[in-house]
């Protein structure tokens, strides 16, 4: 067993031996998700002397795979809070010394103290932004925005609907559509039946932000599941006719946080980077130039104009009542969801 582990490690040391300088900072995140903005990278590099090297993933599982198979390569990684438990349990990430992160105190308490991120008094993730997996519509296809999640099932939009190719997201979306708690799905069969009836509506499955934007840009879809920050970005940065809809039935909410992998070579750089990422000045620039989800830093949100979407709509208590935050899920649940989703995709043929 140990020998196997050694083989794994040896193969990855080779990979990491190339181009590893002391001031290099390897960042692992979604592509086009703040950390790789050229203006931000430039400002951070100028301020701290670190050189940012970005790497990307297309799914949370891919992110975990990358940390597992490249120990010591990454210095700072963006992990959805619902996956933090798994990363901690597998000994992939280390406790963070929050005293080194000046802006940590400005993070809203319920997010900073979330049991998903803080274990035995140790902080394994610094909350960065939160947002929703809701619906996004093509403005060209709707005179008035829909209010119900059932617009996805409307035959008027047959063949012009998309959903993300992610078992957990799809099943939790189905849970909301059938009026269930996303973290405690009692009746998986109803969810499956509801999603089965959605399949004939579907044009394709998207996986990364760019897929969705391409489909909107070429006017191939009317409506689909989408992330709130991405919808904002599509509108602000890419000038696409996209609007976010938070259905009356509710939406899935998630919290993204920064963590430091075990064996990171540039921990000081990672701490400086996390501090920079939750800084109000970075956040407001990100929102205005590019579009972003809601910052976990209360001062950063307060720095936004009063009528901005992230302050007005996402901060609305009525919205807060409807949304359900994702909690960690067990391996058994994940397997059951994956099986259900695979069957749905195969049966569509």
């Amino acid at each position: 067993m140990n020998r196997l582990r050694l083989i794994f490690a040896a193969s990855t040391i080779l990979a990491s031996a190339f181009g590893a300088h002391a001031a290099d900072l390897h960042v692992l995140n979604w592509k086009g998700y703040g950390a790789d903005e050229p203006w931000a990278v430039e400002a951070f590099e100028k301020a701290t002397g670190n050189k940012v090297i970005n790497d990307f993933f297309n799914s949370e599982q891919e992110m975990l795979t990358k940390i597992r198979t490249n120990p010591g390569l990454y210095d700072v990684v963006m992990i959805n809070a619902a996956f933090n438990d798994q990363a901690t349990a597998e000994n992939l990430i280390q406790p963070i010394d929050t005293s080194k992160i000046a802006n940590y105190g400005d993070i809203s308490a319920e997010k900073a103290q979330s049991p998903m991120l803080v274990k035995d008094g140790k902080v394994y993730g610094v909350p960065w932004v939160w947002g929703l997996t809701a619906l996004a519509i093509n403005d060209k296809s709707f005179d008035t925005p829909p209010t119900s999640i059932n617009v996805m099932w409307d035959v008027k939009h047959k063949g012009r609907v998309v959903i993300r190719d992610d078992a957990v997201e799809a099943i939790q979306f189905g849970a909301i559509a059938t009026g269930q708690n996303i973290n405690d799905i009692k009746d998986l069969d109803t969810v499956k039946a509801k999603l089965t009836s959605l399949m004939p509506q579907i044009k394709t499955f998207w996986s990364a932000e760019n897929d969705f934007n391409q489909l909107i840009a070429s006017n191939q879809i009317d409506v689909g599941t989408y992330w709130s920050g991405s919808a904002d970005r599509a509108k602000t940065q890419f000038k696409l006719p996209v609007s976010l809809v938070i259905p009356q039935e509710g939406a899935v909410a998630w919290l993204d946080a920064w963590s430091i992998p075990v064996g990171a070579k540039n921990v000081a750089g990672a701490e400086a980077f996390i501090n920079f990422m939750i800084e109000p000045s970075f956040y407001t620039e990100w929102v205005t130039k590019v579009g972003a989800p809601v910052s976990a830093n209360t001062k950063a949100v307060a720095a936004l104009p009063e009528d901005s979407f992230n302050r007005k709509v996402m901060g609305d208590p009525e919205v807060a009542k409807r949304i359900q935050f994702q909690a960690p899920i067990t391996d058994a649940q994940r397997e059951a969801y994956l099986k259900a989703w695979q069957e749905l995709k195969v049966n569509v043929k």
Partner: protein
Amino acid sequence: MAGQRRNEIGRAVPLLAPAYLWLTVAIFLPLSAMIFFSFMTGLPNTGKPWSFTLQNYAAFFQEDIYWRLLLSSLRLAAEVTFWCLIIGFPAAYALAKLLKGRMREAIFLLIILPFWSNGLVRIFSWAMVLREGGLLDTTLNAILPFKISIDLMYSYPAIVIGLVHSYVPYMVLTCYLTLQAIDDSLIEAARSLGASRWQTLRRIIVPLALPGVIAGAALIFVPVVGSFMEPRILGGRTGTFYGTVIEDQFVAVFNWPLGAALSFILLAVVLVVLALASPVLRRATS
């Protein structure tokens, strides 16, 4: 006699060693590791306990979705191979027998050209052509007097089109090699003895070119059964195949053991298909 043979081997070893050393390191070792993984309950570097199991192979037989996916992948491969043959064989014939000199070189280059571009780029170019309001749709509507709507993107035909485009050069190249080797005087003899063009093709050219056709078919069939990039990008909601499920196991859900087991089952099935086909093929070629 024996001494001479030993001498032959002695001379061959230095020539063979680099290739076999490379194959051992680059193919045999990783493949052995994958066989090993396929019998495990989990990977050792996740920090969880693991043990040996046959469950990954059993999963294939317990759940009918894997069977059904494999059948649809085999059907896809058969269809793609068929279209490659229909398109590739006449082109190879024209190259080998009708064109000469500069012209042949130029056409040859055009056939190999796709190999020089990245596979992903080729697929995304197809996406631009096939979608509603794409190049094909716009061009046809500009020419035709009536309005038609062509939206092949995210469908089964789109996958076949993309795969045929990627693999047809293999068929052209293998057929070209065997067609070129056919002595022109055989064809002339058949014609002068009164065989029609069709008879010449059926009785002389096709049987002699068969080894090339079979080599091409095998080169296409095997990778297409396991293809995942084209179905995923061009297939939309119909794009779930055996290859995409294997890819999911490695990339999306980190179940390498199951992914490895499914891959070896695919390998076994492909070998069985080729073994079943070989007596028929051997009879045809001899």
